[in-house]
């Protein structure tokens, strides 16, 4: 009889964290809050005369952005708490005493967080279909939610977990994670005249979050999927960088106290 293969370390952490997230009611509760938020948002948009006369494409874009923003915030909330939370509760020591490489602990926690986003997608789809119905772009909107939303959530979760690994406390981790994401997303709020400046335009292309927003707006404006594919280079590169270097750095530098010292 063939002996049972040993599970990789990250898989053990993933199954433990996923069980804790979903059976510990945290996941379903966050999904309920997410759906109530989307219901309130959609009702308010339907009742607001100024919002309800936006072009269907603009409204689809705004709704997709809002849905992804909530996904990012929830992912950030969980990942920013993942390591520094253990550190605050003094349970990180026992986790670090396990024979698992420290990078694999982070990978397991990262993937468990993504399971929540996988639960958020089917909840968001009816709202997106409702808003995108009059555009005739329902498949495109759903694809954007799945692919760009997942890319954004993975990026932000990766940033959150890296910050959480080095933050000395949960408070620092939350503050640093949210400020980082706010700074990366801020150029989206600049007036059109400023965004058209060449320097700002280049920054928007290199900033992974604004580049994704720009690509999404282009698709909803009728651009082909391949037309502005260059905009996805910076987010994909950053994600590869986080995935390739993150676990290695954490293997060597994740410590009980936090900080960057080995």
């Amino acid at each position, binding site marked *: 009889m063939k002996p049972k293969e040993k599970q990789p370390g990250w898989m053990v952490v993933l199954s433990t964290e996923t069980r804790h997230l*979903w*059976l*510990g*009611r945290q996941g*379903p*509760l966050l*999904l*309920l809050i*997410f*759906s*109530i938020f*989307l*219901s*309130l948002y*959609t*009702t308010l*948009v*339907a*009742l607001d*005369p*100024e919002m*309800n*006369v*936006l*072009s*269907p494409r*603009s*409204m689809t874009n705004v709704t997709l952005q809002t849905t992804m923003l909530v996904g990012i915030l929830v992912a950030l909330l969980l990942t920013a708490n993942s390591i520094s939370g253990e550190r605050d509760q003094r349970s990180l020591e026992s986790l670090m005493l396990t024979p698992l490489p420290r990078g694999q602990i982070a990978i397991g926690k990262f993937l468990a967080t993504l399971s929540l986003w996988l639960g958020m997608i089917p*909840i968001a789809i*009816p*709202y997106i279909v*409702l*808003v995108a*119905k*009059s555009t005739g772009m329902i498949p495109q909107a759903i694809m954007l939610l799945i692919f760009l939303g997942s890319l954004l959530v993975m990026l932000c979760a990766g940033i959150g977990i890296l910050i959480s690994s080095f933050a000395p406390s949960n408070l620092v981790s939350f503050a640093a994670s949210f400020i980082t994401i706010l700074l990366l997303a801020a150029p989206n709020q600049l007036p*059109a*005249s400023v965004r058209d400046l060449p320097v700002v335009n280049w920054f928007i292309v290199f900033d992974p979050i604004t580049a994704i927003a720009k690509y999404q707006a282009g698709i909803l404006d009728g651009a082909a999927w391949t037309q502005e594919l260059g905009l996805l280079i910076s987010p994909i590169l950053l994600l590869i960088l986080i995935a390739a270097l993150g676990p290695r750095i954490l293997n060597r530098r994740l410590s009980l106290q936090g900080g960057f010292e080995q």
Partner: protein
Amino acid sequence: MNLKILTKVILMIALMALVSLTPVTVSAQTSTADGSVTVTIDRDSVALIAGDWVTFHTVISNAGENATPPLVANFNVASIHPGPHVDPEDWSPLRTQYIDTIQPGESVELAWDVHTLFEGDFAVYVTIVSQEKSFGPVGSPTLHIHAEPDNVLPLNEVIPVVAIVPLFPLALLLITSRSKRKQRPAK
């Protein structure tokens, strides 16, 4: 004697009234007084759905004998009926365009993008002014925009979705709570 004085007073008053009522003539002549600079617009009306964008073009021509000073073209929009508050800043990403001197017989075409934010009837026009005080403002003909309302989200379609979807995560929450309660050892 008294009559003479009275006649003089009446004459003086009449003279003063005449002087005060005579319109004061402006000595500065505007370069547009002869109609040498004209603005035309490529359409006079457009009907669309609120939220849509419309692009129109204006042509500024100099039919005079002298070159114009550098010009400033300014876009404006107003609601024809009282009620809606129209903020032109929100209706056009580029409200002002600057033009160099236009030589005699030449013209310059400008494109304008307008975003109709809500339903109603609106008058859109472009005014040409200059840094030179002698240049009087020149207005374009009006483009009339009629915007029909377009409710992307009718409430009767919204209510079923917003009411039903949260029931799924609620059911999931109840199921997980129940299974967790079952797992606890009975006291």
